[in-house]
């Protein structure tokens, strides 16, 4: 707070004048085009939320907003009463909660153990290899995953039986997708915890050693509390994004048999909005997702505040 004030004082308060604008003409030329770009590509779609309250079809899209028919919350009612909606919402929450829980756990587990590895070279190599899959696209990962998980794939061959990992129309696919995601991201997600660990005072470990704490006790009482603030911030952020399960991953890892359990809100919005040419309903689903997401974020942030932890906003 103090720093901010001091900084504000050093910059002279400028008043708007044509002379100042002329002086900063290069800066204006370098930024205004991108602000226009920003308004078109990021703010116009927000204006598009008005479509959620209108009946918008491909034929009426070209009309101006005032000429379209306002239908109140009918699009929302229609979306919520859709036969796929409940299952889709459950899938979205299930997939993401499972992903947050197992993903966070495995990243922390990975980071804590890697931090304990004493052979520096081996540690480096392990880390380098572990985040390779992060840089590979979802299409490639899906291609590899299907090779492994499909009937007659590598895992079936190893197990010697049909595991039906990609052809059981049940919650099993949530777990499968979750593990594919962990395979892709665990090394990358661990980086942030490793850098948090690097910031832990080494003196604490020395003191604990002198007091006779063994390695597990040091991990439990020093390393884990040391990364707790980081973990909380990341958890808050992921709870805020709990409904934003990307359509890309879900669609690529899906197939006709398991689609009932891989369908998530964003994909559903695409199918209803663009597949069925009902832009209003599609926008309504997307808007529902955003509004609930922001609400969840604020709630999680508040709870973190009550618990006396670092808050995000």
């Amino acid at each position, binding site marked *: 707070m103090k720093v901010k004030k001091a900084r504000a004082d050093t910059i002279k308060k400028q008043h708007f004048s044509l002379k100042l*604008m002329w002086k*900063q003409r*290069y*800066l*204006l030329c*370098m*930024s205004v085009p*991108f*602000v226009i*770009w*920003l308004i078109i*590509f*990021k*703010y*116009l*779609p*927000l*204006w*598009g*939320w008005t*479509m959620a309250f209108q009946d918008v079809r491909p034929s009426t*899209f070209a009309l101006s907003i005032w000429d379209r028919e306002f239908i109140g919350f009918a699009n929302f009612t229609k979306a919520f009463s859709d036969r796929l909606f409940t299952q889709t919402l459950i899938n979205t929450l299930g997939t993401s909660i499972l992903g947050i829980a197992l993903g966070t756990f495995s990243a922390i587990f*990975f980071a804590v*153990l890697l931090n*304990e*590895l004493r052979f520096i070279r*081996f540690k480096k*190599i*392990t880390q380098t*290899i572990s985040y*390779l*899959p992060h*840089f*590979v*696209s*979802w*299409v*490639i990962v899906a*291609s*590899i995953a299907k*090779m492994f998980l499909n009937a007659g794939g*590598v895992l079936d*061959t*190893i197990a010697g039986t049909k595991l039906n990992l990609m052809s059981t129309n049940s919650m099993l696919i949530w777990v499968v997708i979750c593990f594919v995601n962990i395979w892709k991201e665990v*090394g*990358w997600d661990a*980086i*942030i915890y490793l*850098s948090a660990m690097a910031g832990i005072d080494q003196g604490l470990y020395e003191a604990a050693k002198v007091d006779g704490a063994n390695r597990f006790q040091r991990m439990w009482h020093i390393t884990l509390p040391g990364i707790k603030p980081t973990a909380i911030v990341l958890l808050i952020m992921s709870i805020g994004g709990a409904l934003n399960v990307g*359509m890309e991953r879900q669609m*690529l890892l899906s*197939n006709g048999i398991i689609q009932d359990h891989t369908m998530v809100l964003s994909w559903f*919005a695409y199918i209803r*909005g*663009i597949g069925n040419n009902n*832009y209003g309903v*599609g*926008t309504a689903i*997307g808007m529902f997702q*955003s509004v609930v997401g922001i609400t969840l974020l604020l709630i999680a942030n508040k709870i973190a505040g009550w618990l006396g932890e670092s808050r995000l906003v």
Partner: protein
Amino acid sequence: MRSSVRHRKNGVTAFDFILVFFFLLIIITTVYPFLNVLAISFNDPTDTMRNVNFIVPRVFTLSNYRYIFTEKDLMSPFIMSVARTVIGTLTGVICTSMVAYVLSRKDFYFNRFFTLLFVITMYVGGGLIPDYLLITRTLGLGNNFAVYIIPGLVGVFNIILIRSFMEGIPISLQEAAMIDGANDFYIWMRIIMPLCTPVIATVALFCAVGAWNSFMDTYLYARKLPTLQYVLYEIMEQATIKIDPHSANAEQLKNAVSPLSVRMAITIIATVPILVVYPFLQKYFVGGMTLGAVKD
């Protein structure tokens, strides 16, 4: 446990071996799938059908690669992928760093207002349908190469990354140039940019990997301009359609390359560029990632 630690202060305990074993297992889990795909792509398709679990080609062949480059016309998707990656990275880096420079200038009248405008978009967005309608209907960019470049021109996260780096450069350098009569554009291009090489490299790699791996924009907006990723997706979707052995004649059967082998060959081709830049990624990405994470 306690006594063993005391006896060998820097000694290696059983736990260290368990750790090494654990991480060896992780390494194998990570690398094995890639080796498996590589082996299948170089293996005879008919032989592959027998058993898919191997990491050394049993019957070595180049026919899968020959097939995709001659029969499947993979050349134009490949060029499309390269073009969007190169152009997207160049424009992305130039535009992002330009905005970042302006927003790093505390004396700029609109500094706080523009920064706010950019940052807000990190938290709220219109969503899939409004984006889709804007690009395909309002702007008419569907199946236009520009759709690969313009919507992703400037990344807000990257702006923040570059800006915080630029704020670390001594202001006296700029002041000296200004006294010499240099304009702001010149200062950005000739003084600031050369000093920002590390962060520019990071952002360039961010852009390049993102562009190369991008699939959804082709899927949503430009199916007539397929990239490698999209072709791979299409083949994955077709994988369930198989040649009926009863209706196909012997010649057809002989020439039919199994979709699996073709898919694996394309998977390899789409992965190789990532592996080529991986050493650089390693060096710059990780630094950039933690730089962004600890900015506040």
